[in-house]
């Protein structure tokens, strides 16, 4: 019932948010703002598993590409693609590591009270595949650790992030991206924190 109550509160909360903004409340036309600014970025940093995931994989470096675009006056759309190579925390027979490509899509909110910091939230889609030795048919999917990763595995989740610009120069900006992600795995959800530096250039 706790979940139901939370959802009812969410319902009411969103209703209040929606009703608080009348159609004529002065927001410029979304169409005129969308994509009026566009930025691309490169990023690099480290990912830190949290919770029980610490026993599964070690910290790993990541590199990525990003895009940010104006969506509303105070919101930006964000798209991130990141690559990492995770090594198992303990030795797993015939598996050296796991390639992960993470796609993220969401929104950054540029709250004036904490400007220039932006708060972001969105969905994740992680694709993974093990770097393994031998024939995948030799893995028993029901028993062998890491066996499912010998095939393409994809899972979704959500993220929240802090976008912390450090300095801006003309069309360039550098900053820190601190991102918490939860992937909807079983038997437990998988949580990670990533911290990375980015350099961003405004395209238009």
């Amino acid at each position, binding site marked *: 019932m706790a*979940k*139901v109550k939370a*959802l*009812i509160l969410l*319902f009411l909360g*969103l*209703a209040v*948010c*929606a*009703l608080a*903004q*009348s*159609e004529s409340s002065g*927001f410029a*036309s*979304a*169409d005129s703002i*969308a*994509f009026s600014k566009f930025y691309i970025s490169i990023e690099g940093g480290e990912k830190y*598993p949290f919770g*029980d*995931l610490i*026993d*599964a*994989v070690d910290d790993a470096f990541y590199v990525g590409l990003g895009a940010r675009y104006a*969506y*509303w006056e105070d919101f930006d*759309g964000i798209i991130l693609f990141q690559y990492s190579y*995770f090594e*198992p*925390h*303990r030795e*797993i027979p015939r598996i050296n590591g*796991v390639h992960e490509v993470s796609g993220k*899509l969401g*929104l950054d909110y540029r709250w004036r009270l904490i400007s220039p910091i932006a708060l972001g939230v969105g*969905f994740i*889609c*992680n694709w*993974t595949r093990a770097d393994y030795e031998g024939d995948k048919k030799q893995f028993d*999917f*029901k*028993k062998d*650790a*890491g*066996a*499912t*990763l010998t*095939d393409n*595995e*994809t*899972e*979704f989740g959500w993220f929240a992030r802090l976008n912390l610009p450090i300095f801006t120069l003309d069309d360039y900006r550098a900053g820190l991206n601190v991102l918490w992600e939860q*992937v*909807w*795995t*079983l*038997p*437990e959800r*998988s949580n990670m924190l990533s911290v990375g530096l980015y350099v961003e250039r405004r395209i238009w």
Partner: protein
Amino acid sequence: MRSFLNKVLGSFSVPSLLLAATVSHAAVDAEMEGMEVDSRDDGTFLVGSPTFYYDRILGAGGLHSESELWSPEKLRQRLLFNRMSPLPSWNPLPPSVWLKTGNELGDLIYQDFITLEDRPSNRTPILEGGFRSPSFKGFWVTGRAFQDDHFSTRSFSYRKKIVDDEFALFGENYPMFSSMYAGFGYDAGQVNASVLAGEEYIWIFSESSRWIPVHYKPRVETRIDVGNLETTVAYEAADYQNKKKKETGERKEWNGSLRYRCGEACRRGMLQLSAGLAFRKVDDSGVVYTRLEDDRVLLPFMELKFEPAKIFAAHAMFAINDRDWLVQDSIEFRPVAPSKSGITLGVKNVSGTRLNPMADTEEFFDGDTISLTADGQMNLVQGYAGFTDTLGNLELGGRGSFWAEYGAETFDVDKYVTDEDFVYRHGDVGRINSWIKGVTGELWLGVWYQKMFAFKALSGFERVDGKESRFEVTPVEYFTSFSADWLLRRSFRISHSLRYRSDAKWNLRSRDPLTVKGDWFWDATLEQQFPLYGLYLTGTLLHVLGDEIIETPNGAHNRLRFVCTVRKTF
């Protein structure tokens, strides 16, 4: 909200004032075109696979599901065994390019390294990609590949033994269907035409409760609409197989329809007439697991609407051939019909020798011939009364009905057999030759604010009673749902629904009835919209909150799922 619209459209002959009084808005996106039932909240909707579900709107009357009943509105749907199914849809989509992917949530990923016991079963994805070009002098081209791997895991190992390859266009999950087509079309005012050709793998659920693999190669569908005349012709070369029993078969089938719709001038008249013909012709060789009597069926039909005044309308649909007949009619009286409120009183009737006269007539199962037709006829009568009123941004409505059915189609079970975790049945389609009665009631409340917000609360109950309870499915007794849609700053859509339904029960597909426990469900869609660019980025969560249970015999778990779509319209 959408469910109410569907109900009005599906159950009755369009009480237009009730329809007009409702708030129109978008709703939670289905994971794939044709899977809308999975988010329905106004009756008994039990999903075992994209290719098999039980869909009965509370208050529809009778015990059959909506997809079991043939009607001219479903002429361009697919016939899957004895059900009309909107999936796999070969309806050309509007000019756009799109990509969709998703997953049943709960793969192991890195948990795989630390979970050595009680490992969860594999979760499977959904894939779709397609395009339709803008028109160039009326001509366009299209292509689409789509398959839904959800609901495939539970019967995976059983189905894998029957077929000699992965039985899919992509991957190794043995999806319940996998389809791909390409083609071209022409649109120019009074003439719309298209030709699509492709390949399709599909697992069809039968009366014996087994999954039958069918491989269409090729499947070709042509549609030609000229003025008010609609023509559909499909050719299907279907392969059947059971590798375990070393059986193979082939069916070459022509099917389609011709329909003259009442035109614009006709619709303004007091008497409106439409008519048409549906047909199938099959040629079987080898082992095909079903049979169509005489290898053909022709079903002429006629639709009438008599509306002498706005307060009165009578609708009727007659379909008849040498084997079967089917009648669906209604009389509706709207004594109070101002623009934003109304009272509707009506009576509807469904009678016929068979719910779907287009379906095959026999199934062959382990040496047994299962008759898919029953002697006699069914008669369903329903009386209903509804009201709706609108006060500013508030709408209130209700509907009550009483129905009685004699001769309802059922299944007379001779025996059950078990193979691994699955139960099958022998017997024949039969009838319940006694009266079954039901009483229903529903209330709804809607609130909306400009185009930004719309909320609907809907609740209903139904009590079914009768001397015999040999129903395939005992429907839910009550449900309640809350759905809301926001369009924030005209470019961000949130649609979600929270709902509860009570227990439902499958009575005839296993020795002990399968009770589908009642539960709460929550679905939500979030969408970034860029209308100026025709770009839509959508994420949808389905089946949140509810336990992941099996909703149909020999079906799969209905799991928590996430689906995302990128669409660019032209």
